């Protein structure tokens, strides 16, 4: 890379090339070479696309057994109760003992006529009637499992991205202030961080989630309004995600703040910052022009690698019923439903659908983070 000493003339072509060589572009070039990370990036973009356009894929798992016809039953997985005259096979599909052990069956225009055996094979087509089957089954409310899995991507991505962004922003601001101003401010701020380090995160997230859910229930019973009512409504519209964001955000910025502070400390004493000071640059300029562009890369890498953790936490909380609101499709809640309905013993493919979705998503974020780390810090290559 180094150019020969002195002021030799430079060709125009060379100049054009040099325009494209800036640190961000170099990082992208390095990243592009990492095949696994590029595939991961593609997978994530695909998941994002599917999640954003989830409405288009509604009932993708409902197939007309005769072939050809378009599914017309609207399933709205964000609401507990089906919105239209859609029959509730959860009730219809009870077996002799009154249990409802099956997730798959088939529908006619009128109603669910038959419940399939535990392996959910396609029924015999009947030319007379329109017949609908669930490709991958349905939940106890008769909602298409595949559609729910797609909607579940919304929850997981939202939790991962919002959780990471919140912790990045809060941790970055906190850590930068602490590291940049140093002295007593730093001492006090870092004492607080040390302090928060002893907090058992999950215990507090569980307590907060229970608190939020209970308060929401109480308010709903009493029909109260006001600001609290508005927030509760908003949370309800978001399927319980708002409170989940808050619970995740309150504690997860701590580690980020520590890293940000460490980076600021190491860059603050660099000579280029001193040069800026000698020129008379303001603190604001030093922070935004000199420090931030240098420390943001490694922090984004760290947050990318932390995304699977947020997704895990949401899945776990939903699994124990403290995550999203009941009825909001979430992969954790779906696995929990399979477990509660004895799905370990039959209809195992139903367990696999949300499981695979979960693993592919976290796997992709892991590979993406690794690739980003190698690209931003080539010394860490292959580690």
């Amino acid at each position, binding site marked *: 890379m180094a150019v020969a000493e002195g002021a030799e003339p430079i060709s125009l072509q060379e100049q054009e090339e040099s325009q494209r060589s800036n640190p961000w572009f170099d990082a992208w070039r390095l990243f592009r070479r990492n095949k696994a990370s590029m595939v991961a990036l593609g997978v994530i973009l695909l998941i994002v696309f599917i999640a954003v356009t989830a409405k288009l894929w509604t009932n993708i798992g409902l197939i007309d057994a005769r072939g050809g016809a378009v599914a017309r039953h609207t399933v709205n997985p964000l609401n507990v109760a089906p919105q239209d005259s859609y029959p509730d096979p959860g009730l219809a599909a009870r077996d002799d003992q009154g249990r409802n052990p099956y997730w798959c069956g088939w529908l006619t225009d009128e109603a669910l006529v038959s419940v399939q055996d535990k392996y959910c094979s396609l029924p015999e087509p009947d030319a007379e009637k329109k017949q609908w089957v669930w490709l991958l089954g349905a939940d106890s409310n008769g909602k298409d499992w595949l559609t729910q899995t797609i909607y579940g991507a919304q929850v997981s991505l939202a939790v991962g991205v919002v959780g990471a962004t919140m912790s990045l922003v809060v941790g970055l601001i906190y850590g930068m202030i602490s590291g940049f101003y140093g002295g007593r401010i730093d001492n006090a701020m870092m004492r607080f961080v040390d302090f928060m380090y002893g*907090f058992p995160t999950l215990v507090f997230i*569980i307590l907060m989630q229970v608190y939020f859910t209970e308060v929401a229930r109480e308010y709903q019973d009493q029909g109260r309004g006001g600001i609290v009512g508005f927030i509760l409504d908003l949370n309800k519209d978001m399927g319980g995600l708002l409170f989940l964001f808050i619970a995740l955000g309150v504690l997860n910025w701590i580690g980020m703040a520590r890293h940000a502070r460490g980076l600021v400390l190491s860059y603050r004493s660099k000579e280029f910052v001193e040069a800026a000071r000698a020129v008379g640059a303001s603190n604001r300029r030093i922070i935004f022009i000199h420090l931030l562009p240098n420390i943001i890369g490694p922090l984004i890498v760290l947050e990318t690698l932390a995304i699977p953790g947020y997704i895990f936490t949401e899945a*776990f909380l939903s699994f124990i019923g403290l995550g999203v609101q009941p009825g909001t499709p979430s992969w954790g809640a779906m696995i929990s439903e399979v477990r509660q309905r004895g799905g370990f013993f039959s209809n195992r493919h139903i367990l696999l659908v949300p499981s695979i979705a979960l693993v592919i998503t976290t796997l992709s974020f892991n590979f993406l983070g690794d690739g980003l780390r190698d690209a931003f810090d080539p010394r860490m290559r292959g580690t």
Partner: protein
Amino acid sequence: MSTHARKLSGGSLLESVRNAGGTVFQAVGGASMVKFLIRRLLAAVPVLFAIMLVTFTLSHLLPGGPFNAVGQRRMPDYVVRQLEEQFGLNKSLLFNTPNDGYFPDGDDWKIIGYRDEVTTLGGSAGGDIRQETRRVLKIDLLDSQFFTYVWDVLHFDFGPSLNIALRDQNVSVTDEIATRLPVSMQVGVFAVLLGFLLGIPLGVLAAVYQNSAIDYVSMFFAVLGQATPSIVLAPILIIVFAIELDWVPVSDQQNQWREGPELSLYYLKILALPVLTLGTGMSASIARLTRASLLQVLHEDYVRTARAKGLRERAVIYVHALKNALIPVATILGPLLAAVLTGTFVVELIFVIPGLGESFVNSVGARDYTMIMGVSILYSIFLIFGNIMVDVIYTWLDPRIRFD
């Protein structure tokens, strides 16, 4: 423990055994370590207090109380009131101000002042009672639920469990934790062991045969292991090993967890799946960390020197490189402790293990305040001591780092 540390910090084991006391003290940092420990322990006190305050406030903010209902049936108000008085829940929450209307003995409210405290010493069958009256200094402001609790905790009394099933049998939180903690610990300790025993060799193999098939395969599984949460892994393990192969039971049917560990085939069987679930993720992280760290060390000058002087590759890796490469791996112990705590929640729920995680989730539901507090404090202590331990281990392993 100390001799072990000396060995790791560079001297020979023999030498350290010979001059046991002094050398070891020096090796582990001597006076500076004592100072460091004192500082960290002192710093832990306000943290614990704050955790108690936040947990206490948060758990009491939850609507409802521990006595409001038994199953589906609502308790009559007077019963609730009686129980609340019995367990001291009628006091004000954080501070007892005059406005709260709670006056300890009908006297005037004072911030601080003497009160009579009557203790019954004994008596006779005739009906007379021997009593002793003492004047004790009381702080009315702090005669609240929270400070009473803090006072009790300072005396190592974590109160009775308020859970319906337990309070009738007079089970204290300490008893309940004492029966449940060992259960969680068994799973946790074995999982950490599995993590290290599987993770370190895998990481070393991958680093030594870098960019070979061994490396790619082991790292693929490591990344996969990291990306698979317990709620996915546990059902898969259950389906494969418990249901299809029927090698192990889905969950403990013989009350073995409660009765305590007893080395038997059955014990190993019920332990296997929870430990695998928890340990896989750990070993994956450890393997990746070991590989990264060892690769870095293998490029250091002193390793090059060791090779240059003609040492066998084996000696280079196991004598010179690995010891230093394991230093960063030691730091994972802290997050690992947290992971064990988090992990046990899931694993205990899925495998129906009567451990602490299960107990915590139940006690939140039952508004068992004392139990919530007890478990939270215990977890915090684990975390705080885990963090201190990591710093100490780090300093033992790397003589360049000083206690500061």
